C-alpha cells in the first residue's frame, strides 16, 4: 500500500487535520490501500525542512513558511493546493499600557511570535501603514520577536505593551495577561478574510500521485463543510484531539473566543498571501528582488473536486 506522510500542528488553525485525524474521515476517503502517516510539528520552518528533505509529502502550514519554502527552492519544492483557515490573529494591548489609538504606540514594545513570520510581517506593515517606524528602521517602536508563552510572561511583568499574536494566544493574552483586543486582523482585509493556514504538497508527490492528492482534497473539502455545519461538535472534537496530542485541552471559554476569530475554509485566499508576500518583501525578508510567486498555486485538483461537488471553482 502507498503511504501518505502528512504534517499538521496540534492547533486550532489546522481544524481539518485535527478533526479528520480524530474521526477517521481521511482513512475513509482514501480507502484501505492508503496508509496515512501523521507527523506533528509546532513550527513552520521545521515542517518545510521536512518537506525539503522528503520526509513528508504534504503538510498544513501557515502562509509565510509557504512563501519562504517556495522562494528558497526556486519554486521547485512545493505547491499550495488548498486553503485551510482564515483569520485568527489580533493585536492585543496591555490594559494598563495606556494605548488607545495607533498614535499611542510611540516608544512602546510590541511582540511578534517570530522574525519574518506571518504576524511579524503583518505587524510591520500595519505599523508602516499607520506612520509608525520600528527601531531597526530608525523609529521608536520596538518590535520584539518572542515566543508566545514568553509574551504572556512579559505581559504579566508589564515589560511588554502589545503583541500581534495568533490564536489561541491572542485570547489568552486577553484573558490571562490583562490584555485587550486592540485590532482584529480580519478588519484589515476585504471580506474579513485572510489566509492563516493552507495545505501544501511537495511537487514530486503531486506529480507522482495526483489521484491520492485529489482524494485527500475531497476529504479536506468535506471536512471543511462538516465543520462549518456542525461548529459545536467540531469544536469539541478539535479540542479533544488537541488534548490527545498535547496533553492539555483549551479551556472552553478560550476555545470559543479564539475559534470565533477563525474561519474554516478550503479557499487558499490567494490575494491575501500575495499581499503578505509583498509586505514581507518590503520588510526585507525575501531578498533583494520581489520573488515571482506565479507558480505557487496549483488549484486544478481542488477545482476538480469542487466541480464534482457542484461548487464554484476558485481562481
Amino acid at each position, binding site marked *: 500500500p502507498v503511504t501518505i506522510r502528512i504534517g499538521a500542528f496540534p492547533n486550532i488553525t489546522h481544524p481539518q487535520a485535527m478533526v479528520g485525524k480524530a474521526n477517521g474521515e481521511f482513512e475513509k476517503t482514501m480507502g484501505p490501500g492508503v496508509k496515512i502517516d501523521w507527523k506533528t510539528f509546532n513550527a513552520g520552518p521545521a515542517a518545510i525542512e521536512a518537506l525539503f528533505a522528503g520526509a513528508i509529502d504534504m503538510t498544513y502550514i501557515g502562509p509565510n513558511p509557504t512563501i519562504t519554502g517556495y522562494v528558497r527552492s526556486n519554486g521547485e519544492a512545493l505547491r499550495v493546493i488548498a486553503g485551510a483557515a482564515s483569520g485568527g490573529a489580533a493585536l492585543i494591548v496591555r490594559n494598563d499600557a495606556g494605548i488607545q489609538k495607533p498614535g499611542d504606540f510611540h516608544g512602546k514594545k510590541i511582540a511578534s511570535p517570530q522574525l519574518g513570520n506571518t504576524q511579524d510581517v503583518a505587524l510591520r506593515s500595519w505599523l508602516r501603514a499607520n506612520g509608525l517606524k520600528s527601531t531597526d528602521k530608525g523609529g521608536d517602536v520596538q518590535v520584539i520577536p518572542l515566543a508566545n508563552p514568553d509574551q504572556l510572561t512579559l505581559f*504579566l511583568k508589564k515589560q511588554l505593551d502589545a503583541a500581534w499574536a495568533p490564536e489561541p494566544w491572542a485570547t489568552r493574552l486577553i484573558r490571562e495577561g490583562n490584555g485587550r483586543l486592540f485590532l482584529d486582523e480580519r478588519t484589515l482585509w476585504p471580506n474579513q478574510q485572510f489566509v492563516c493556514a493552507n495545505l501544501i504538497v511537495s511537487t514530486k508527490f503531486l506529480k507522482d500521485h495526483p489521484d491520492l492528492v485529489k482524494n485527500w482534497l475531497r476529504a479536506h473539502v468535506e471536512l471543511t463543510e462538516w465543520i462549518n455545519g456542525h461548529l459545536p461538535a467540531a469544536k469539541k472534537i478539535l479540542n479533544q484531539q488537541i488534548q490527545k496530542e498535547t496533553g492539555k485541552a483549551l479551556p472552553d471559554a478560550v476555545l470559543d473566543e479564539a475559534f470565533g476569530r477563525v474561519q474554516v475554509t478550503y479557499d487558499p485566499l490567494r490575494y491575501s498571501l500575495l499581499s503578505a508576500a509583498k509586505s514581507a518583501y518590503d520588510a526585507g525578508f525575501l531578498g533583494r528582488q520581489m520573488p515571482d510567486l506565479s507558480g505557487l498555486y496549483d488549484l486544478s485538483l481542488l477545482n476538480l473536486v469542487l466541480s464534482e461537488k457542484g461548487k464554484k471553482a476558485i481562481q
Partner: protein
Amino acid sequence: MSVANHSDLSTAVESRAIGVRTDHAAPTRLQNRRTTGRGILRRITNQVIFYSVLLGLWALLAKLRIWPPYLFPAPWAVASALWAGLQDHSFLIGIAVTMKRMLIGYSLSVVLGMILGLAVASNKFLEETLGALLVSLQSLPSICWVPLAILWFGLTEKAILFVLLMGCILSVTIAMEDGRKQMPKIYTMAGRNLGASGFRLFWYVMLPASLPYIVSGLKQGWAFGWRSLIQAEMIFLTIGLGQLLMMGRDLNDMSQVIAVMLMIIALGYLVNRLVFRTMERTLQSRWGLAPNA
C-alpha cells in the same frame, strides 16, 4: 579504658568530618563507615531535611504570590499536574520512550565515541586534523544537526538518535583524549616495556589508565546527551519528555513544565546514583584513590 578511649576518638573524628573532607581513614574503611546503618540514616535524614526546606521555601514563595501562580505555580499545583500525568499514563509513556531512546543512543555514543577516540589516539594524522575539529564541533548546539538528521534519516527514530549521538559522542571522545593526555607517563612506559604496543597498548594500558577521566566524560556525556535528546524531542515533537515539556511551554502550563522538569531531575539523580556513583566507587576502591567522604 580502651573502650572509653575508643569512643572518645571516634566522636572526635566524627565531629571533624563536618569540616573539609578528611581522608585519614583508608577508603575501604570509609566505605565501611558509609554502609553502616548510622551513616545511611544520617545521610537520609540530611536529605529529607534539605529537600523539605527547599519545598517549604517554594511553598512559601508561592503562598506569598510574588509572582502570579501561572508563572510560578505552587508545589501542590505541580503535584496535581504530576499526578494527572501519571494517572493518564502520558508521563509514564513519555519516560519510557525517552529512556529507551536515551539508553540506545547513549550506548551507541559510548561505543562510537571510544572508537573515534581510538582512531584519533592511534593515528598522528587523524589527531592533528580530526582531533582538533572534534572539540570545536562540540560547541554546536543540537539544533544544528536537525536539518542533517532529517535529510539523512527522515522523520524517524533514527533522526532523533542521530541528534542525540552528535550531542554526546564527542564528550566521550574528548574525555578519552584528556585522559590520555593527562595520565602519568609511567603507565605507558611500563606497558611498552612489557611488550604492549599499538592497539594492545591502547586497550590494556591507556584505556584503563585513563578510566578516571573516562568516567568523568561518561557523566558529562550523559548530561549532554540528555539535553540533546530533550531538545530533539521538542523539535520533532514525538512522544517523550521533550514533547511534554514543549507542550507545557506552548500552552504556558507552568505546572506541567515544572512537573516534567522534576521528572528529568529525578531520572538524572537515579541514573547518577545507580550507575555513575557505582562506577566511581569501584574505581576508587580498586585504585585506592581519595575516598569521596
